[in-house]
């Protein structure tokens, strides 16, 4: 059992050293590098480490969490990310502005209409470009549809991680309808690649509109079904109410955004806090809850779906005529400068900080992913809870590893 491992020395990459750690331990085979790591890997009596992931049914992608547990109770934890890291910021620096759109697409693979918007909006801001109003409305339509698709999946995932089999499938039925609709609009089901610098790729078509009309006629009913199935279920409520409570100050201190922040009562929604596109012409509420627990986060998602349906209704009534692409140069070279754009994705604030040096490549493209900041909350929410609750908390934060690992 005491098979020792040989690891590369941290000081000299050519030297291999025998590590006291065995292959069965979660303890890293090198001395601790920071204060926090030393504290975490120092085990007291009765504590043990357990690897949750990277291949675990409910870690939402390849996330590894090292749990320090005492019996069933989680004492401390250390999330390890980076398994999906592909260096998208560096890739964007080496491609043109158009390349960045499809490179940013798979960041948030559950709702990629938002992540692909980042380079588009940033470049438009650098170019001081006026996007046609019809294009703006189509964008809002696509965003809100995608938000519903993402939220439908969230509701399913949360109950799947709590052991319920059925809601995830109902969620997927709902999502599939929307995804098919967007497929008719954009030509892809998951990574849409639809937004363009200066507009969108293609106007609304008949197929999309007929599917949308079909869906709108029973969208509210689908939400109602989900509500019936799980919202008041005593087991579900018992599992999530009072679990993973965040208060306002902590949420602000932890840079949480999106439904996580709104579940604590702070109505911070970029669509209202800092309106972009045509959101200031549309009427909708920012749903909030006061409790800040997993159940509140769930209910915020449910309410947001209703608000999104309301927004889509307005967009369809107010859709102006016109073109869907602005006139843009074939070869985009923005003036040197910096821009910060930010939109409200289903998980919170998606942001991009871009720098241009006047060439056709971005000089620096920084993507601010909401899941990245939201996920760092787990270190504060989990200690003291049971192992079973780690799933409920993690699912209620709704992380998407593609965006976290970039």
């Amino acid at each position, binding site marked *: 059992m005491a098979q020792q491992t040989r690891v590369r020395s941290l000081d000299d990459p050519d030297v291999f050293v025998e590590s006291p750690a065995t292959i069965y331990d979660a303890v890293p085979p090198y001395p601790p590098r920071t204060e926090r790591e030393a504290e975490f890997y120092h085990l007291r009596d009765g504590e043990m480490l357990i690897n949750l992931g990277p291949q675990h049914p409910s870690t939402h992608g390849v996330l590894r969490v090292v749990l320090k547990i005492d019996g069933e109770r989680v004492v401390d934890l250390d999330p390890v990310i980076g398994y999906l890291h592909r260096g998208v910021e560096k890739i964007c620096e080496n491609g043109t502005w158009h390349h960045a759109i499809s490179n940013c697409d798979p960041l948030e693979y559950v709702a990629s209409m938002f992540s692909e918007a980042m380079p588009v909006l940033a470049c438009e801001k650098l170019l001081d470009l006026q996007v046609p109003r019809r294009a703006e409305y189509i964008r809002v339509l696509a965003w809100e549809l995608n938000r519903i698709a993402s939220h439908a999946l969230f509701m399913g995932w949360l109950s799947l991680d709590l052991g319920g089999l059925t809601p995830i499938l109902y969620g997927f039925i709902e999502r599939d309808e929307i995804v098919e609709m967007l497929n008719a609009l954009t030509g892809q089901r998951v990574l849409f690649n639809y937004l363009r610098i200066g507009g969108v790729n293609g106007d609304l078509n008949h197929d999309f509109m007929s599917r949308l009309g079909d869906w709108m006629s029973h969208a509210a009913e689908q939400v109602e079904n989900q509500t019936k199935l799980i919202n008041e279920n005593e087991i579900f409520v018992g599992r999530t109410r009072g679990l993973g409570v965040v208060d306002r100050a902590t949420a602000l*201190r932890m*840079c949480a955004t999106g439904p996580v922040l709104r579940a604590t009562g702070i109505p911070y929604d970029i669509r209202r806090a*800092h309106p972009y596109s045509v959101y200031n012409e549309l009427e909708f509420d920012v749903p909030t809850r006061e409790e800040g627990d997993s159940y509140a986060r769930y209910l915020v998602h449910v309410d947001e779906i209703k608000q999104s349906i309301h927004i889509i209704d307005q967009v369809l009534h107010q859709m102006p005529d016109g073109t869907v692409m602005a006139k843009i140069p074939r070869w985009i070279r923005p003036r040197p400068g910096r821009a910060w754009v930010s939109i409200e994705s289903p998980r919170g604030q998606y942001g991009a900080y871009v*720098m241009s*040096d006047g060439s056709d490549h971005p000089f*620096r493209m920084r993507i*601010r992913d909401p899941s990245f900041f939201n996920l760092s909350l787990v270190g504060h929410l989990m200690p003291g809870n049971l192992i079973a609750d780690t799933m409920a908390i993690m699912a209620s934060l709704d992380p998407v590893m593609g965006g976290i690992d970039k």
Partner: protein
Amino acid sequence: MTDNALKRRLETRLAGQLLGPVRARHDTTEIRIGAANVTSVMSTLHDEPQLRFEILADLCGVDTGDAMQVVYHLWSETTPDWLRVIVDGLPREDPRVPSVTFLWKGGEWAEREAYDMFGIIFEGNRDLRRIYMPPDYASFPLRKDFYLADDAARSPGQGFRHMELTHQPPEALPENLLRRSKL
């Protein structure tokens, strides 16, 4: 479009700590400070009742080719503008900045990311280790003197493919390939 009142407030309140004039473009107000003033400026921005920048929207590192920067984006309900704080002029050899984790604990991971990608040391961060790259990785990928994967072995940190060290072309030196910002 930009918020002039905010500009005036910042100028009066932070006078002496700014490296240049308060600038504004689009919907963003921008200030530049030195590394020494980060703690006091950030505390002021966070705590001052007229400012109350409670939300740290983003924290990232930048390599301009000449110097390192750390860029913060803040949001407050007192102004319609975003506030961008640039910590400018960090030396490329040994960039060090005070951490803002005492105000925003959630900045911890963002600081780890900036350390991982640029090698910027955030003093006061308790957990400053690599976050994306493996722990025995030796270079900083987003620096401008780091090349693409094929060139990784030629990076100053010697990359991750030891065998490729033998095929190093003599002209591929970092200073020859450095792309510098024209900002």
